[in-house]
Structure formats: structure tokens, C-alpha cells
């Protein structure tokens, strides 16, 4: 099993509903976020091109954050989801420095926090909160090992990219382009 997510940059309108849904679902402290929206403008006026992406932890296959964690708090869970065990984390910050996407943050309670792909929902057969709530249905989630999952199907049809593949992290968050 290998969970992954695909985000359609052609459909995302940058409404930030996914951000709010995550904050509510996961009780993210005020002022912090586990997922966020990036808007990138390329070109010169009037030839402008806009790309909007909803980003979060890439649940990398080769995660520097898991590798550098001295206590084993950062670890791989079911289907390659990268998680932090709160009461094993000493808050040393190594994993925060190691993530090229800056996907982690120090929780005010001291431990490190990040996207969990809503593992508590996924284990019940539900979709992550961000995927569920998106008004344009631009996100696809599922098991890459299952050819009939939403994410496998859309990745078969569409062109996609990952972010900073050259960092060697083997990210599992795909962006449809």
C-alpha cells in the first residue's frame, strides 16, 4: 500500500477551504497551518500565467525528516504516511531543518507537527478533510498500488509533476499540470 495525493493545478482556485478544513479537523493551533496555498505568477505582463497549488507534507518515500530524527518520533506509518509521535518528539528541530518543503512547524505544545494525510479518517475509509471539502474537487487521494483508486486513475490520464524532485525525497504529492 502506498498512499498518495494528486492536486489539479488547473482546477484549484486558491480559495483556502482545504486550509480551514484541515485546521478545524486537526485542531491546528491558531496562526499555524499544515496545508497552505501557493500562487505562482510566471511571465511578464500581459503574458502572464498563474499556477495555484494546495501544498502540504509530501509524505516522501525517502524522507530526510524520518532519517534525521534522533528519537524515532518521525516515522513511516501505514501506506508510507509520515507521522510524528508526540511523546517521543524532543522538539530538537532537526526534522524541520531537513524538510526542503518546510512542511513542518514547532507546535506551541513543544512537539513538531505536520500533515498526517488525516490518517484517522483514512483508516475509517474516509478521505482526508482537505480532499473532502474542496469545492472544485481538485484533489485526489488513494492507494497507488490499487489501479482503481482515484489517485491512480487520474495519474494515468494526466500529466503531472512533483516538487523539487532533485532533492531526492521521492515526494508522494503529485501536481496535475
Amino acid at each position: 500500500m502506498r498512499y498518495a495525493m494528486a492536486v489539479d493545478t488547473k482546477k484549484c482556485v486558491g480559495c483556502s477551504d482545504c486550509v480551514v478544513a484541515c485546521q478545524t479537523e486537526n485542531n491546528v493551533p491558531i496562526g499555524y497551518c499544515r496545508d497552505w496555498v501557493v500562487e505562482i505568477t510566471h511571465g511578464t505582463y500581459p503574458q502572464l500565467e498563474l499556477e495555484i497549488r494546495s501544498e502540504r507534507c509530501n509524505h516522501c518515500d525517502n524522507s530526510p525528516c524520518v532519517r534525521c530524527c534522533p528519537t524515532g518520533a518521525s516515522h513511516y506509518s501505514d501506506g508510507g504516511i509520515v507521522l510524528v509521535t508526540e511523546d517521543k518528539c524532543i522538539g530538537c528541530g532537526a526534522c524541520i531543518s531537513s524538510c526542503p518543503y518546510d512542511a513542518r512547524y514547532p507546535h506551541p505544545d513543544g512537539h513538531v507537527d505536520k500533515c498526517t494525510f488525516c490518517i484517522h479518517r483514512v483508516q475509517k475509509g474516509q478521505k482526508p478533510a482537505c480532499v473532502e471539502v474542496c469545492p472544485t474537487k481538485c484533489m485526489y487521494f488513494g492507494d497507488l498500488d490499487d489501479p482503481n483508486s482515484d489517485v491512480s486513475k487520474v495519474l494515468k490520464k494526466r500529466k503531472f509533476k512533483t516538487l523539487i524532485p532533485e532533492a531526492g525525497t521521492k515526494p508522494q504529492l503529485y501536481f496535475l499540470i
Partner: protein
Amino acid sequence: MKEELIISGRMNYKVDPSLHIWGWEIPLYLFLGGLAAGVLFFAGLYYLRGKENEYQSAVKWVPMITPFLLAIGLGALFLDLHHKPYFWRLYTTIKLQSPMSWGAWTLMVITPLSIIWSATYIKDVFPKWDWKYKWVDDLVAYFIEYRTQLAWIMIIFSVILGIYTGILLSAFNARPLWNTSILGPLFLTSGLSAGAALIMMLSKNPLERIRFSQIDLMLIAVELTMVIHMFMGFRASTEVQIEAAALFLGGPYTLSFWIFVVFIGMLLPAFLEIWELKGNHIPAYIPAVMIISGSLMLRFIIVHAGQASRYLY
């Protein structure tokens, strides 16, 4: 011209707009670890070379400072932890892939070792010293028998500790400035040179001072070569590393790096030491303080600049 404008809705504390998860604690910890490693390395080395009585400061009493240096360093590391009640988790796991983990374990070996080494010499340095309990006396006498073995372990672990202070950073490929394997040897050399400078500063024996001044000169030459090498490597590498090097070549860290680390920390003391070796008199503490402060600044600047260097996507 093509332009690219990136707007992100993320504003996480200590992560955005640019990473600053590590403040003064980690650089201080790396500096003190490096300095202690330098002192212990020379203590072991000159003991094994039979210079115990010739270089008394290096072998016998300057190492007595290292347990304090290491304790303050560990204290700084502890202050850096955001989840302090769980710090003991560091010592319930050994993760070889995590420099933070094996560094913490290295400290667990070298700190007691530095205390034992100091204890075996305490009666040489303070003749009136009394351990009060007989079993401590016996234990210390036992360790005195094994000084050669202790010296070997100390040399090995001080090199590991010195290299670790650099590898802790160079293992992060997310921060292009840190992601160069030369950082390990560079920080090791800088720690050795700071250790030699401390011995030179505290020694009362002119011969010992001259020896450590020569050692420092050599180490500074090695450091300068590595610094040049590091920038050559960056300039010939990928765009993110070229940008990382630019932080020091015209960017915001240019003045502080070249003035405090290279000029005051390496070139000027080297010049003063050559001047002194030629027979002129310069108080030993002047070049020594410069070298030690340069070593401290190197840690601060690299830790901070590294967090400012990143992949843009």
C-alpha cells in the same frame, strides 16, 4: 524578461518567511563541542607522545576545563529543545542515520571521559587535593593505570565529536549551504585550532606556547584552504548552491563572514603568530582570543546563513 512571483499563504512561526528554528543555542553547542574536542585531542596526543611533563597545560590542566565546556554545551542543546520533558528520549534510541542521535551519544561517552581524565591529574595540579572517600581514590588510581587506553579513546572520540559538529549540518540536503561534505572537516579543523589556541593562551611554558602557536598556524592554513574549496565547490554546483554561496559573496553575510571569521579569526592571528615566531613579543592571548572568537562566529554564521539558504520552487 521572465519573472516569477510566488505568494504563499503560510506563516508558521519559526518557519516563515524564512527558517529560523535554530537560534543561538545550536551554534554555541557546536562551538563548545568543537573546542572541547580540540583540547581533548591534544591532551591525548601529547600524552601518547610522552610529553606529559613537557606540555603540562595541554595534557594535565587545560582538559580540566572541558567537562565544564561540555556541560554548558549540553545545557545549550537542552535549551534548544522545544519539548524538554521528553529529552531523555534521546537516550532510549540509537539511530545511526541521525547525526543528532550519534552526536548525543558521542557526548555521553566523551563527557565522562573528560571528567575521568581530569580526575587522574587532579593531584598533579592541586597537590593538596583530597578525594575524601577511599573508593574514589582507588578508582582514580585504577584509571591512572589505563591512561594510554584512555588517551586513545579520547583521541578517537574527540575526532568524532569535532567532525559531528559539521556533519550535523551537512546531513541536511534541504539547506544547500550546509549540504557540503567539507563542513565536517572544516568544523573539526576549526575546533582543533580553537582548542590549540586555548592551550596556547593558558600555558605558562614558552616552549609549549610556541608549539601550539605553530600548530595553530598550520591549522589556519588548512582551514583557509577548505574555505576556498567550499566556495569553489558551491560555485561549480547547482543553482541553489550558487545562490547559497552568494550569501557570502555579496549577499547579507558577506561582511560578517569575511571580517569576523576569515580576517579576525584566521588571517590576523596567523599574521601575529608569524610575527611572534620571528622573535617579536605579542601577548599570547591576543591571537588566541581572535582564533577562538573566529571559531564561534563560524558556527553562528553558518547555522544562520544555512537556514536562509533553500530550494525555491
